[in-house]
């Protein structure tokens, strides 16, 4: 598959403050999540790939073309900025049709497309109310509507989920997945891990302006095998379980939580560990109540990479 967005060696600073540094990336169709704490450089990166800013060093291409002031690219690109800013005096419909008219559609086409976009984000009912009176969730959705109203192939969404309640989040996550299923390239930034986990497994971790890791979350996890995994098992027979597994050489450490009747294993080879567990579980005397991996989520990967 060919890359849609190619970033080569991007660096950008503001005065003497670093934005991003030496980011080289190829982004392919599907959902790619940019993950990092506030101020990590996600927004800077997105602003550069959407032609809002120029890189000090390096270049970025979308569909093989440079982006800055390139109107041909912008026709195929949708950008949802992070800031909660609108032409407040307009109503939702006017906002959409107005921006759509910048693509050169005629009045009728604008109305049709705006109507479709409003339907997509479920804002038809309030389309005649001024944006000023919208709630946070509505504002976020109308912003997404303007991103997709012109049917772009590439969507760049900067923090589309921030400040939303679970219901609102679920709606937008569903939307984004629909775009992915339609074959679009979606780049989403976020600083909240469960959101990203719900969206995609293809992530790019950014911290201090650099890419810390990229790829499938599980793949990344495997890559980090030097960092031991924790597996916590709760069972009435937890001491027995510990004894059985203690002999295995891939088990590095065992600790007990007697008050929860649980045992925590540290291993650097999960496959072998779980295969062995599958064998042990055949013993009718062993009842497992709960298996968890306290650090098998993005947070752990993140903490580990950041602290490395």
């Amino acid at each position, binding site marked *: 598959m060919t890359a849609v967005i190619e970033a080569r060696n991007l660096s950008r600073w503001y005065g003497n403050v670093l934005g991003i540094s030496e980011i080289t990336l190829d982004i392919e169709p599907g959902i790619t999540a940019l993950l990092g704490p506030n101020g990590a450089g996600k927004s800077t990166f997105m602003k550069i790939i959407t032609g809002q800013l120029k890189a000090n060093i390096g270049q970025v291409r979308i569909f093989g073309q440079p982006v800055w002031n390139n109107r*041909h690219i912008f026709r195929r690109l949708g950008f949802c*900025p992070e*800031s909660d*800013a609108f*032409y407040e005096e307009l109503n939702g419909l006017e906002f959409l049709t107005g*921006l759509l008219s*910048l693509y*050169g559609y005629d009045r009728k086409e604008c109305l049709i497309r705006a109507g479709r976009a409003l339907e997509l984000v479920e804002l038809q009912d309030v389309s005649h109310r001024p944006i000023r009176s919208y709630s946070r969730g509505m504002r976020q959705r109308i912003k997404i509507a*303007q991103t997709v109203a012109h049917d772009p192939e590439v969507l760049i969404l900067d923090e589309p989920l921030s400040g939303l309640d679970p219901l609102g989040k679920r709606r937008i996550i569903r939307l984004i997945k629909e775009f992915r299923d339609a074959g679009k390239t979606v780049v989403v930034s976020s600083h909240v891990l469960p959101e990203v986990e719900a969206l995609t497994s293809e992530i790019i971790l950014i911290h201090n302006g650099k890419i810390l890791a990229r790829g499938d979350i599980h793949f990344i996890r495997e890559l980090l095998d030097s960092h031991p995994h924790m597996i916590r098992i709760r069972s009435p027979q937890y001491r027995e379980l510990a004894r059985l597994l203690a002999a295995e050489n891939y088990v590095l450490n065992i600790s007990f939580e007697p008050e929860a009747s649980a045992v925590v294993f540290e291993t650097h080879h999960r496959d072998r560990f779980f295969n062995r567990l599958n064998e042990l579980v055949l013993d009718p005397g062993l009842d497992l109540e709960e298996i968890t991996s306290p650090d098998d989520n993005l947070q752990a990967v993140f903490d580990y990479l950041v602290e490395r």
Partner: protein
Amino acid sequence: MREEILRVFSFYFFLGKKSGRARTFFLLSSAAVLMAIIIRTYRLAGYWTEDGQVIFQNFLMVFFLQFLIVLLGLFYGSSLVGEELDNRTLPYLTSRPVRRAAIILGKYLAYLSLTTIMLVFAVILSYLVLNLDPEFRPGDLLTVLRYSAILWLGLAAYLAFFSFLGTWLKKPMLVGLAFGFGWESVIQYFPGTTQKLSVAHYLKSLLPQYASSSGKLGFLFIRLEPTRPVLAVIILAGIILVFLALACLIFSYREYLFED
């Protein structure tokens, strides 16, 4: 390119119409009409006043030329980019398939049209209020159209200059005020070539000067060493083109950061 400009134009014309500021400035320019109505009622009540033409000359020089077009040009010109930065709406524009130059030109034209409406409305209406009587000749209508055209040229020039200032400077307002109401109103009384460094000079060169003979407004023309009308128009057109081109150039190559 023309089509792109048109798209930006229609969006911003619509937006400009809706914003509350348009109302304020419309009211401000209608102050001339209000004054005209007061004067007319006074005259209808049987009191003596100057001839309507002479009164309108007053309006032209003092209100329209030195106040209204400068103010409209300054405010709308400097908000061309400024308002997008203040409201952080610039990304909506710069991620659309229109060239950056087209954004500037389209917005310029939109705001020019908007301010033109305010200006021409006020000019023509105040003229009619002051002069419409049985002796009114169709030829007078031509006069007022000529005045409007000259003022419009001035408005376009100021708007272009302040648009340039707005794309270039982060805070154009104070510099703009100093230029518009300081430099412009002082330099035009200087003798020799100095006065040719102001926009107002060329506008005055274009305006009929019979008012000076009536003596009331003579002081405004004391030191005017008029430029030939053709040359004045060419120079004004040149000012518009040069500063618009500069604004487009700066906007095409410069990136704008929000306050934080």
